[in-house]
C-alpha cells in the first residue's frame, strides 16, 4: 500500500472509532503527538507529587496524612501507567525521564505554583484535580488504545482526589474565622491558575484541529474550560466561599457562565519556565533521580548476581 492509501485507511479506522494499537501503521505526526502528549501527561503526574508532598509531614491529623499519602501514591502510579503507554510508541522511559530532568520536556504549568497553606491541599484536590479530570474523562475515548486504557484506570482513581479536596475545604469552611480565611485565600490563589490549565483560547490559534480529526482530543480548550467554570461556580456555593472574578455571571442566552479575562502574560511566562517554582521543581526531580542512581544500579547488580547463581546451580 502506498502512504496515501495507508493514511486513508488510518483515518477510516479513526472515523469508525476503531482504536489504534502500538503495532498498527500510523502517520509519523500521530505517533509524535501522542508521544509528546502522553509523556507530558506522565511528567505532570510525577512533578504534581511535589506540591502535595510538601504537606505530608505537616498534615493536621493522621487521617489527613494517610489520605494525602494515598493520593500522592496514586499520582506516582498515574505517572507509571502513562510512561508505559508512551513506551509503546518507541521511546524508553529513561529517555523521557532524561528529557524531563534536562528541562527539554514540559509538564503542566499548574505545578509551578507553590502550596503555601494547608488549605492549598484542599484547593488543589478540588480545583486542580477537578480540571484534570475533565480532560482525562475525555481522553478515556482517545484514539490511541494504550493511552485510552491508561486513562480509564486513572479516572477510576481520580474521583477520590477531587472529593477529598472538596471535603477538606468543607471542613475548613465550617471552622474558625482563621480557617475560613485560609480556605478563601487558597481558592483565590488557585482559581486563575486552574483556568489556565486548559491552555490558550481556541481563537488564539490558527493552527488546524488535527488532534481533533485524529480523535486524540475530542473537546477544545474553551469547551473544557467552560465545562469547568459551570461546574465549579455551583460547587463553591456549598462551601459558602466565592471565586475571585467579579465578571462571573450566568449568561441566559449561552446557558453558561461568563467569566473574566485570564492573565495570558502570566500563563506564557509560566509555560516558558519563569513561574514561581519552575526551577525548584526541576531541581527536586534531578536531586531525587541522581540520589536514586545507586539504588537502581544495586538492584540490577543484585538481579544479575542471582541469575548467575541460578545458572551455576543448574549446571
Amino acid at each position: 500500500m502506498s502512504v496515501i492509501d495507508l493514511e486513508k485507511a488510518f483515518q477510516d479506522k479513526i472515523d469508525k472509532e476503531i482504536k489504534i494499537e502500538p503495532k498498527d501503521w500510523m502517520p509519523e505526526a500521530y505517533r509524535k503527538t501522542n508521544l509528546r502528549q502522553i509523556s507530558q501527561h506522565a511528567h505532570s503526574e510525577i512533578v504534581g507529587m511535589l506540591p502535595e508532598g510538601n504537606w505530608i509531614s505537616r498534615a493536621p491529623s493522621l487521617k489527613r496524612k494517610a489520605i494525602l499519602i494515598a493520593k500522592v501514591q496514586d499520582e506516582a502510579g498515574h505517572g507509571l501507567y502513562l510512561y508505559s503507554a508512551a513506551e509503546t510508541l518507541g521511546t524508553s522511559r529513561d529517555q523521557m525521564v532524561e528529557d524531563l530532568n534536562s528541562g527539554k520536556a514540559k509538564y503542566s504549568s499548574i505545578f509551578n505554583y507553590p502550596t503555601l497553606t494547608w488549605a492549598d491541599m484542599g484547593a488543589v484536590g478540588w480545583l486542580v484535580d477537578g480540571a484534570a479530570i475533565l480532560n482525562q474523562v475525555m481522553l478515556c475515548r482517545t484514539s490511541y488504545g494504550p493511552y485510552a486504557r491508561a486513562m480509564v484506570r486513572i479516572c477510576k482513581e481520580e474521583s477520590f482526589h477531587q472529593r477529598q479536596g472538596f471535603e477538606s475545604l468543607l471542613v475548613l469552611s465550617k471552622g474558625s474565622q482563621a480557617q475560613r480565611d485560609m480556605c478563601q485565600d487558597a481558592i483565590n490563589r488557585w482559581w486563575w491558575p486552574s483556568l489556565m490549565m486548559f491552555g490558550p483560547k481556541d481563537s488564539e490559534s490558527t493552527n488546524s484541529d488535527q488532534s481533533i480529526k485524529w480523535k486524540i482530543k475530542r473537546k477544545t480548550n474553551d469547551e473544557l474550560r467552560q465545562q469547568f467554570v459551570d461546574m465549579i461556580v455551583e460547587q463553591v456555593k456549598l462551601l459558602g466561599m466565592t471565586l475571585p472574578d467579579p465578571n462571573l455571571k450566568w449568561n441566559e442566552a449561552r446557558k453558561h457562565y461568563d467569566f473574566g479575562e485570564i492573565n495570558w502574560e502570566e500563563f506564557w511566562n509560566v509555560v516558558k519556565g519563569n513561574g514561581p517554582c519552575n526551577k525548584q521543581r526541576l531541581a527536586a526531580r534531578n536531586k531525587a533521580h541522581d540520589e536514586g542512581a545507586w539504588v537502581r544500579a544495586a538492584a540490577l547488580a543484585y538481579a544479575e548476581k542471582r541469575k548467575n547463581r541460578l545458572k551455576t546451580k543448574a549446571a
Partner: protein
Amino acid sequence: MHIQIKKFYYGDIPEENTGGSGNTEKHTNELSWPLWEVFIRSKQGLDHKHAGSLRAADAEMAVENARDVYTRRQEGVSIWVVESKHVHASNPDDAEMFYEPASDKIYRHPTFYDLPDELKHM
C-alpha cells in the same frame, strides 16, 4: 504528508512554545531495568488479564511493583509478570490473511443450524 501539530491543547504543549533549555546532552550510561508485562486475576475463578507494564530489575521486584501499582484497591488476587521481550505477537499487517480462514466457516456458530421451534432445551 508533513503534518506538524502546533496547536496548544490542554495537556499538549507544542515544542516551539516550551522555551526549555533543550539540552539533551546529559546522556547517562546507566543500564535500564527491563520492561515487564503484568497480568492480573481480579477474582478467584477468572482469567488473568493484561493490566499494563512496568520496569523492574527482576521478577520478584516486578511482582511487588505490580502489586503496588495495579492492585492498590484490591483489584487482584493473583499476579503474573512476563518480561516483555518474551512476548511474541501476531502481526497486525497480516491480520486480514491471518484471520481470514475463520470467516467462511460460519457452520462453527450455533445460529447456522435451522431447527424447528418445537425443539426445546437446545
